[in-house]
């Protein structure tokens, strides 16, 4: 175990930055989960798809990575809607496990499909933002990560305002609280679900545009981030927006501080342990008032 202040400071900073990104990835999942009670095991793979789209725009099209937002967000929104319509909507009423199996199958199709189409190579994009850094004392802050952190925060705020202030947003919240009551109130639940799924996926588009400046894309990218987002959503409480943000920070810090202090790659074990403990003792999430 290492307890050097420099390293811990670095861990702290890295943890907060990466936590913001984790949060953005998870916010979409918690929205979908909360509204439709569907655990989309292919959430990570949707992110992978978004990353590929952004990669090609930047690499082949020469776009500025941040400009790709204009395209990535609507495209992934559409993608989410399409997938929802064709595979998920039909089984909304089926037992939860069927839904899990289906989305699992979907995730396999997407990642294996990506491998067939693009090969398993990790693909990097070289942008002028890659190497910009500045220092806080001995610790390093990578500018693309900082931008991603800020961007995630902004997106979260926008999403929050949408959910609170707009009719469509309120419809989503109503549908997530009580499906039947919402229908009785005249809300088109079908359309609301569609919107929620699309929005949840669109967040991934934002994340992809933000992350391409410092992360690579490959068919397996989805697996890693998918797992992390599940952990965060459970931590924060399914459907709990703020919970996803807080959960993202917690996990980001756990991973980074874990790496700073623990030997080997045990930080991942720590993350899983927290996950299991929360599932056992407070599966509704750390932030919910007890309501099973």
């Amino acid at each position, binding site marked *: 175990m*290492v307890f*050097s202040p*420099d*390293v811990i400071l*670095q*861990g702290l900073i*890295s943890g907060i930055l*990466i936590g913001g990104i984790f949060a953005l990835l998870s916010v979409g999942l918690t929205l979908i989960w909360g509204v439709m009670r569907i655990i989309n095991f292919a959430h990570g793979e949707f992110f992978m798809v978004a990353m590929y789209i952004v990669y090609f725009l930047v690499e082949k099209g020469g776009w500025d990575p941040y400009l790709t937002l204009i395209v990535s967000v609507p495209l992934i929104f559409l993608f989410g809607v399409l997938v929802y319509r064709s595979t998920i909507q039909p089984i909304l009423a089926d037992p939860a496990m069927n839904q899990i199996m289906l989305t699992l199958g979907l995730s396999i199709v997407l990642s294996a499909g990506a*491998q067939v189409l693009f*090969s*398993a*190579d*990790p693909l*990097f994009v*070289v942008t002028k933002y*890659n*190497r910009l*850094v500045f220092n806080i004392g*001995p*610790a*390093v802050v*990578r500018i693309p*990560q900082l931008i991603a952190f800020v961007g995630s925060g902004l997106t979260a705020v926008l999403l929050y305002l949408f959910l609170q202030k707009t009719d469509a947003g309120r419809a989503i919240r109503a549908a997530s609280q009580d499906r039947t009551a919402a229908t009785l109130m005249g809300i088109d639940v079908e359309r609301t679900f569609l919107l929620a799924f699309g929005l949840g996926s669109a967040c991934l588009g934002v994340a992809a545009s933000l992350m391409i400046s*410092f*992360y*690579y894309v*490959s068919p*397996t990218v989805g697996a*890693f981030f998918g797992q992390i987002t599940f952990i965060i959503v459970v931590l924060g409480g399914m459907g709990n927006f703020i919970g996803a943000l807080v959960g993202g920070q917690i996990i980001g810090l756990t991973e*980074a501080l874990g*790496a*700073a202090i623990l*030997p*080997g*790659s045990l930080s*991942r074990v720590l993350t899983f342990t927290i996950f299991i403990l929360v599932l056992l003792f407070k599966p509704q999430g750390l932030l919910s008032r007890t309501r099973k």
Partner: protein
Amino acid sequence: MKRVFWNVLLLISLSLSLVGCGQPTPAVQPEETSPPVAEATEEPTVNTIRLGGFFPLTGGTAKVGIENRQGLQMAIDEINAAGGIKSLGGAKIEMVWADSQGKPEVGISEVERLVQQENVVAILGGYESSVSTPATQAAERLKTPFIVAASIADEITERGFKYTFRVASKADFYARDQVLFLKSLKDLIGLDVKRVALLHEDTDYGESTAVGQKKYLEQEGMELTIEVKYPSSAADLTTEIAKVKATNPDAVLVVTYLNDAILLAQGRLAGGMKDTPFVDAAGGSLYAEFTQALGDSAEGWLSIVEFSKYAPKTKAVNDKYFDAYSVDFSGNSALNYQVGMVIWDALERAGSIDRDAVRDAIAQTRLTGDKVILPMEELFFDETGQNPQSGLYIGQVQNGELIPVWPPAGAVASLQPFGK
């Protein structure tokens, strides 16, 4: 009704079994008995020698797997273009490709298929140690020679097997040469390396190299300041680098795959370690993407290199490879090409496609001259099946390319600053 249904199912499963029971393809007709001369007077229909090529053609390491295959393919093409195996009447070589997908259990399946179904005389290739280790054991039990091209885990040639041979260096040699290089820095640039940190990815590749690194560091009296492991899928390695920096090492030995190599190269500059030599063990830094993605940030980075196109006798063969595939040889493709040369020589001497005869011929290999494109005087196998003279260079990224700077006998340029 029920009966009919079940009987139909019965028929379906029977037919499925029949599909699987296809006749295994014979190697060369007839096997084992006729002398080579007789075969030359047979029908003008193709007389072929079937060899198995064993690589991860899909999956996470597919890129390297395909690269490996290309190296071997070029050698085979050369053999066939030169008239095939003369001692077998000009029989041409036919490659049967097997995809291990980078998974041990799939690799074993594929070895089974190559030997039982496709009837190959020998198996060549292998990339990941975790796959080659059980695959060579499977081949051993099936009494089929397996020449390992690129897997470096020590145990592959430490099990007393008779049918396993390896052209690549052992992980041990990589570690040995990394440490020897560090030791030589004193003479090269007056840097007395006393404290070394290890930083590597956490799969068997990183671990087996680390075992050797620790051993040689101890041998040379250098202090191990810290060993930091990280999952190869890590998104960010700034904390790991900070951990290493906190122990103030004179040098850092790393073992990487591509994306962590890039993260480390960037991270060490940002983390204020630009003047500390980072030496990779021929991992991710050998890819073209490494220098492409990093640009100037890669300058000064060091790594073990298995092959260099700048060595005198390798320019011609490298140009040929470049013409065919538009990239230079990498250590991996070069190793596989070398394996091709070994099997060519062995088959010629064996004059037979009997697996044991071929095995004995391989064991007696003594290759020199043009047929050896790797840094060694003579290629032969010791009683464990290992190629003991396997040597390695240390290359440094200078102007976007890895140039050999060590050992002095093979150096093409002098050592530059460790980072810009």
